[in-house]
């Protein structure tokens, strides 16, 4: 079955991302959901079902039911590492496409700053195998392997940080709104070599929400619904570092999810006008260019170095929002925030960071040690 043109986004909302010490998860969920309700011009009573994505900030459908007082409808909590948000969206899309529901809500959120946790802690639950691993360590090992394979160094990574922080200055809801220099990025304190502090996305609080409905009904809510053209999800090994054949210079989960989404949409990378991708670390964005087919294998670092990833770089702009790097990464929220961002561009509402004449956008969410890839293609016609 193909999801193309069966489902439409009719409203999107997003809370302010950041160190939201003054806001609870409830505050952010309500902020994002009401933003989306308003955007879609619907009343909460019209929501027939909901999906909520969070890595670890809550369990069960009550994560949404209680703050939104959204009682007596089916709500499902989705967890798929850092791709929890987009997978919640994907499940919502499939439920609508199946004909079961007309109007549903997909919301992602994460409240990370209420604990003193430094970044994402170790995952895995084995007493010794993989003990002490951190999120940045898994991507840093890819960076060192990429450097070894293509003979480059960390100045190549800095280009991603510079671009995304620049874009972030134009995103009012971004966690960080500041420029960074190559010197600052390269000389930032090391987190996991070669990744320094400014190669890493921040630890952020936030929530994002979208309202989706059956395509035939979309125009009864708004004149310019965003159509879902394809949604792909792929899960590969969660222990890639143990897999003897793993090259560590790309993530097959991304490539496979992209291929599935492109096939459903009947498109290729050439048809895409903008990309919001999962730049949890600068190296990840470079690998994403290659895995999403924006450039050839081994050319990702050139794609950003030559300015092609810029908003007006003459190729496909990547992360006009500022990406995870600058907009922030409240885990469960990110995938939905990407749908929100792409929709803003397709609606022509992205302000200073607007990608001109954007008609087709791609959003890419990545989870775990590069093991869960989720790709969505959206278009305004």
């Amino acid at each position, binding site marked *: 079955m193909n999801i193309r043109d069966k489902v439409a986004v009719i409203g999107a909302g997003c809370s302010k991302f950041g160190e939201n010490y003054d806001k609870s998860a409830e505050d952010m969920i309500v902020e994002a959901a009401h933003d989306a309700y308003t955007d879609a011009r619907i009343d909460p009573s019209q929501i027939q079902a909901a999906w909520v994505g969070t890595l670890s900030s809550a369990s069960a459908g009550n994560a949404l039911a209680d703050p939104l007082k959204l009682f007596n409808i089916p709500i499902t909590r989705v967890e798929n590492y850092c791709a929890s948000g987009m997978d919640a969206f994907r499940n919502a899309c499939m439920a609508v496409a199946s004909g079961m529901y007309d109007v549903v809500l997909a919301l992602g959120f994460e409240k990370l700053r209420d604990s*003193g*946790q*430094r*970044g994402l*802690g*170790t995952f895995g*639950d*084995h*007493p*010794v*195998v*993989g*003990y*002490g*691993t*951190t999120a*940045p*360590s898994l991507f*840093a*090992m*890819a*960076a*060192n*392997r990429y450097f*070894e394979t293509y003979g480059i160094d960390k100045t190549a990574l800095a280009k991603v940080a510079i671009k995304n922080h620049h874009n972030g200055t134009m995103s009012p809801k971004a966690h960080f709104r500041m420029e960074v220099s190559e010197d600052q990025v390269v000389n930032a*304190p*090391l*987190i*996991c*070599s*070669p*990744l320094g502090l400014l190669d890493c996305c921040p630890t952020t609080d936030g929530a994002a929400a979208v309202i989706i409905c059956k395509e035939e009904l979309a125009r009864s809510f708004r004149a310019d619904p965003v159509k879902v053209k394809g949604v792909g999800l792929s899960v590969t*090994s969660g*222990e890639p*570092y*143990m*897999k*003897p*054949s793993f090259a*560590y210079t790309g993530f097959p989960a991304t490539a496979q999810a992209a291929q599935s989404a492109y096939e459903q949409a009947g498109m290729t990378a050439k048809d895409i006008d903008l990309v919001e991708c999962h730049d949890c670390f600068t190296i990840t964005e470079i690998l994403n260019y290659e895995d999403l087919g924006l450039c050839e294998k081994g050319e990702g670092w050139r794609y950003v170095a030559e300015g092609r990833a810029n908003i007006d770089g003459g190729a496909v702009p990547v992360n006009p929002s500022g990406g995870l790097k600058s907009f922030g990464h409240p885990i469960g929220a990110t995938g939905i925030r990407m749908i929100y961002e792409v929709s803003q561009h397709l609606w022509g509402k992205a302000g200073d960071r607007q990608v001109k004449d954007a008609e087709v956008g791609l959003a890419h969410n990545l989870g775990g040690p590069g093991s869960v890839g989720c790709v969505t293609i959206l278009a305004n016609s």
Partner: protein
Amino acid sequence: MVGIVSYGSYIPSYRLPRDVIAKEWDGPSLGGERALASFDEDSLTLAMNASIDALGDRNPKAVAGIFFASTTSPYREKQAAATVATVLDTGKELRTMDFSDSLRAGTSALLTALDLAKAGELLLVCAGDARMGEPDTLQEQNYGDAGGALVIGSENVIAELVGTHTVSQEFLGTWRTEEQDYLKSFPGGFENKFGYNRFIAETVQGLLQKCHLEAKDIANAAIAAPSQKALRGALRGLGFDMKSQVQETFWNTVGDAGTAQPLVLLAAVLERAQPGDLILVAGYGDGGDAALFRATDGIASFQVARSVYSQIEVKRTLQSYGKYARFRKLIRKDYATEDESTPVVLLRDQKQILPLYGGKCPACGVIQFPIHRICTECGHRDGLEEIKLSRRGTLFTFTNDYLTETPDPPTTHAVVDLEGGGRVFVQLTDCEAERVEIGMPLELTFRKYHEGYGIKNYFWKARPAE
């Protein structure tokens, strides 16, 4: 012919200069340096790594007994010898025993093994110690950490047993009760005068008399000693030439390594022994033990995996008392990450964790770790064959992680491709962050990853290969 078949030693790579300790307390320095077990080492890993070298390529299933000696065994109740046996992959049908609670436990284990070897058995004796002197005492400077191991048997011996002698004597010189964190020594010269000097003299003389030999017949003597000075005092008047006949105690470079010390000194002597040499080893504590060996022709061609002298040379100097204090839990730090240790998984995955077995796919032949139910490469469903993985390999990729909490940052995570197949994801140790590079040759070393719920979680790490 009963005797020593093989031997190994292990000196941890960290050295703590005694000046660093003295400076911390604004007190006198004894000079020199002491070997220091890192945060991921303890008496068990010290003995373990010496045992791996001592056993070498010998069939582990042939070992009939493993004796572990220490005064600082990682558990108060729980045998360490069983862990050594499991890591060495001996199988279950053997005798394992811990010798403890006396400084003499190392030589006592050796003498017991020699007796059992007379029945034709192959045995492995190992000792490791990381003793704690109270902060701001001279003992804190004096003790050093090390491990030693001997394979004892009746075939292919490189040093045959000539005789043994033991003196057992009630004496309180240095002790530690259940309630005490640190060793206590009675102040002044009491212990040396009425304990150490007397027992060493009695034991050594007793052995020589038993064997109808004189001091001048001995080529080299490996005698445990709290210090070089104490050893000189004990041997005074016995007819030994300190320079040519007595192995120096490595007090200046390693320190007093407790139960492991006589085994390490013996290893140093064996490294340089010639066929026909008469070699004496003696241990002290609640009396004394001594054994005499004659080097055989086999010693000329014996290749030691890692010599004591080379390990003394290859070192990393720790200039921080704070780090030492963190390693030894003198200063404790609460880590944010909750530790959920469980003996259940340690048992279930024992074969993978301790003797390091991986799986080999019968369909595609790919060797993998851990042992998956379904092949990670080709999807073969009917199980993998257990295969013992190599302990040498090269670094495929890595990162120096400053985020993971550890007493000795950074934590270097390493993806290691093992010789002969298999890829493991482990931590790198004994290696400064700036030395790490893709492609570097590595060897695996047995270490402690972390502790939680009172459980020590041992597994393999990688370190630069020599």
